[in-house]
């Protein structure tokens, strides 16, 4: 199972990729496997604010529905509209074509993205999946 080293993770099984002050968000391969075939994704509306740890959408699979949590604070700038027609991208390519939304994150004093302190590294997330699996 793939857990790319360059990404950040949350205990709710989201991944976060940071470029400048833009955070791209999706769910991990572990999450996608646990959910099974994803059939519908409800995403936040661009322009709305999201708060780290708060639900901002839903992921429906054949067997279950789960909240989608924002891993960061900020404003939604873009969502992956491809998922409307093909939600199975979440299963097939969770870290690339299956991305879900992008957030403009506030800057810290150095001009970097201000990230919540409790995001997990790939190694930390791998530990978490071992105890969950």
């Amino acid at each position, binding site marked *: 199972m793939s857990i790319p080293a360059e990404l950040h993770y949350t205990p709710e099984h989201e991944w976060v990729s940071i470029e400048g002050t833009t955070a791209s968000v999706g769910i991990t391969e572990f999450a996608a496997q646990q959910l*099974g*075939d994803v*059939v*519908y994704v*409800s995403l936040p509306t661009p322009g709305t604010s999201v708060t780290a740890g708060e639900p901002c959408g839903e992921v*429906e699979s*054949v*067997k279950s*529905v789960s909240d989608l949590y924002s891993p960061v604070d900020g404003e939604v700038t873009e969502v992956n509209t491809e998922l409307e027609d093909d939600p*199975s991208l979440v*299963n097939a390519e969770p870290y690339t074509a299956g991305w879900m939304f992008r957030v403009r994150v506030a800057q810290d004093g150095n001009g970097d993205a201000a990230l919540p302190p409790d995001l997990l590294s790939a190694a930390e997330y791998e530990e978490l999946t071992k105890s969950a699996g």
Partner: protein
Amino acid sequence: MTSFAGWQMPLRYASETAEHQAVRHVAGLFDLSHMGEIAVTGPGAGAALDYALTGYLSAVPTGRARDTMICAADGGVLDDLVMYRQGEQEFLVIANAANTETVYRELADRAAGHDAVVTDATSDYALIAVQGPAAAGILGPLAGPDLGAMKYYAGAFGDVAGRTAWVARTGYTGEDGFEVFCRPEDASHIWEAVAAAGAAAGLVPAGLAARDTLRLEAGMPLYGNELGPDMTPFEAGLGRVVKFDKPGDFVGREALAARASEGPRQRLAGLTLRSRRIPRHGYPVLADGQACGAVTSGAPSPTLGVPIAMAYLEAGTDLEHSVLAVDIRGDAAPADVTDLPFYRRRQ
């Protein structure tokens, strides 16, 4: 893997949608060893089952199967069952895993006074199902009974891949298919042999998730969803399993007769949704905005490409003139009443 009635079972092997489609178009291979097998044998076995269950089982010829139910004295369904008559005095009753203990105890109690022996034989059997239009072509060359000649809802002793088995043309998917009851120690050999024989044709192993969407499309009830102790077979539209014209009394007769004459208080309906979101067990159904029932089972239908559900609706609901919707976590998703089953295979 998932825990199910005390068994570790595969929810899916890879993609449940792909497994579902394989069963509809080619075939799927299921491990159903969790199902309960209860043997009822002896000179009085047929009469004991006539008294214990809703069906007229003593009239079923050897080598045939029946869908039947076991009800409480108040008419509530304790389990839905498949009964195989394996011989003049040998009957095998298949119970849902979660209900096996209850069914066994009830059968043992109800057989008292009949010349019959009731045995929980669940641990004597593994159950492997091959379901789908290619099932006969895949399993036939490996099986001792002539599967091509076997009628639907028939069964025979024989062998599969050289191992002794009871093979029946039954299933829970809405497709043609077979169920192989074998010794547990022979199960992996038979599984491997069937998997190898069917691989080129596209046979895939299929899990519980696909089994659930297959039976839902086929309009087949699931105990705990469409069936339970708080309803009779009539609510589920399965009054045909209650044989009032059989000789002698049976458990639940009086209550069931009363229910049959007064008509059901709710009816099982099929719903097709126009949304992408999935109606799930317990979600309210609305008629013109007012609650009129609840979803019992719901899923995306791989065959139809839309969400489908079965729901119990109050008997008085005006389905002709009401605007129906399912309350999906606070949003009313428009729904259309659809005749059950959602899917019927070409004969």
